[in-house]
């Protein structure tokens, strides 16, 4: 009888067990480097106004926020990118400089780059925006960095009143 009771207890005994098994997973996030000119890459015109007073001359023509640079940058920890600017075609008229500058970025999130100040753009690539981390600037005009353009007379003697030329400016986003 005692033996049967023991078996019954064994039968009724309820123990909570736990066994574990597993599966591994990883996800790889890629590097991303995208740059865009907004609202479009149409031509802008810088024309130095004729003076209205004898003996004077206008020496600059400026367009602020004529274009906007948007970018998306995804990077590993500790790495940065920069944007360089250079003339991709054409020649700035004799006696003038074409200056460009980048404003502070806004509109998105992350580690934006910093504008390198006003620079004289020519056929050599020059640092335009530096220290870009992982970020996105937002899309369209009003997002990212406003680009200012200024045509300035540097040597009046070399000016040709009828000089008109098209130049292309190329912005390149590259890893540091």
């Amino acid at each position, binding site marked *: 009888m005692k033996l049967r009771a023991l078996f019954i207890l064994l039968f009724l005994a309820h123990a909570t067990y736990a066994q574990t098994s597993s*599966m*591994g*997973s990883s996800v*790889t996030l890629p590097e991303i480097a995208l740059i865009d000119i907004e609202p479009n890459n149409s031509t802008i015109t810088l024309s130095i106004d004729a003076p209205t007073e004898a003996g004077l001359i206008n020496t600059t023509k400026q367009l602020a926020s004529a274009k906007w640079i948007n970018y998306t940058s995804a990077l590993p920890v500790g790495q940065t990118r920069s944007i360089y600017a250079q003339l991709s075609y054409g020649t700035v008229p004799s006696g003038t400089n074409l200056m460009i500058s980048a404003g502070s970025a806004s509109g998105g999130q992350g580690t934006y780059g910093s504008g390198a100040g006003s620079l004289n753009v020519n056929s050599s690539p020059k640092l335009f925006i530096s220290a870009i981390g992982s970020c996105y600037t937002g*899309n369209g005009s009003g*997002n990212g960095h406003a680009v200012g353009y200024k045509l300035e007379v540097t040597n009046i003697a070399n000016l040709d009143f009828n000089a008109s030329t098209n130049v292309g400016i190329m912005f390149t986003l590259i890893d540091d």
Partner: protein
Amino acid sequence: MRVINIFFVFLALACGSSLAQTIQVTGSNWNPVISSASVTEAGLDYTSGASVQSSSSQSTISLAPGGGFLGYYFGAWRVDVRKVNTNWDNRLKIYARRTSNGSGFFGGIQNGTSYQEIQNVDQSFFDGSGYRNNITIQYSISGFSVLIPVDTYSTTVMYTLIDL
């Protein structure tokens, strides 16, 4: 009387260790690589809600509750799920869902058919009774952002079978 005693001996043995509790997860690891083309426009992040999904049978779970013969066929159980991170960013979310009932002779299976986020602590995933083979599991990962440093993020999904 002797016959009855023998019956109880067999019953006790059947309820003992001869049919131990088991859970086995099979299938390959899931290691998606997100395409850089997922971001289509400069200035934008990944689309909100962007995700990748594994095959609908990325993992297959076979389990049997403890409790011997009766437990094997009728024992109630629950499967909990959690993750153990190797290198993980909390902005990334991994989800799992059950995509089939598997097979078993008696018993059944409930819950777990909707994606649920896998946390760092055990959470109830699905439950049922009796042994069950080839329960298929699908995974999804979301939460991508260019603000998350470029890297490979790894975790291990742990399933725990609990006899109820």
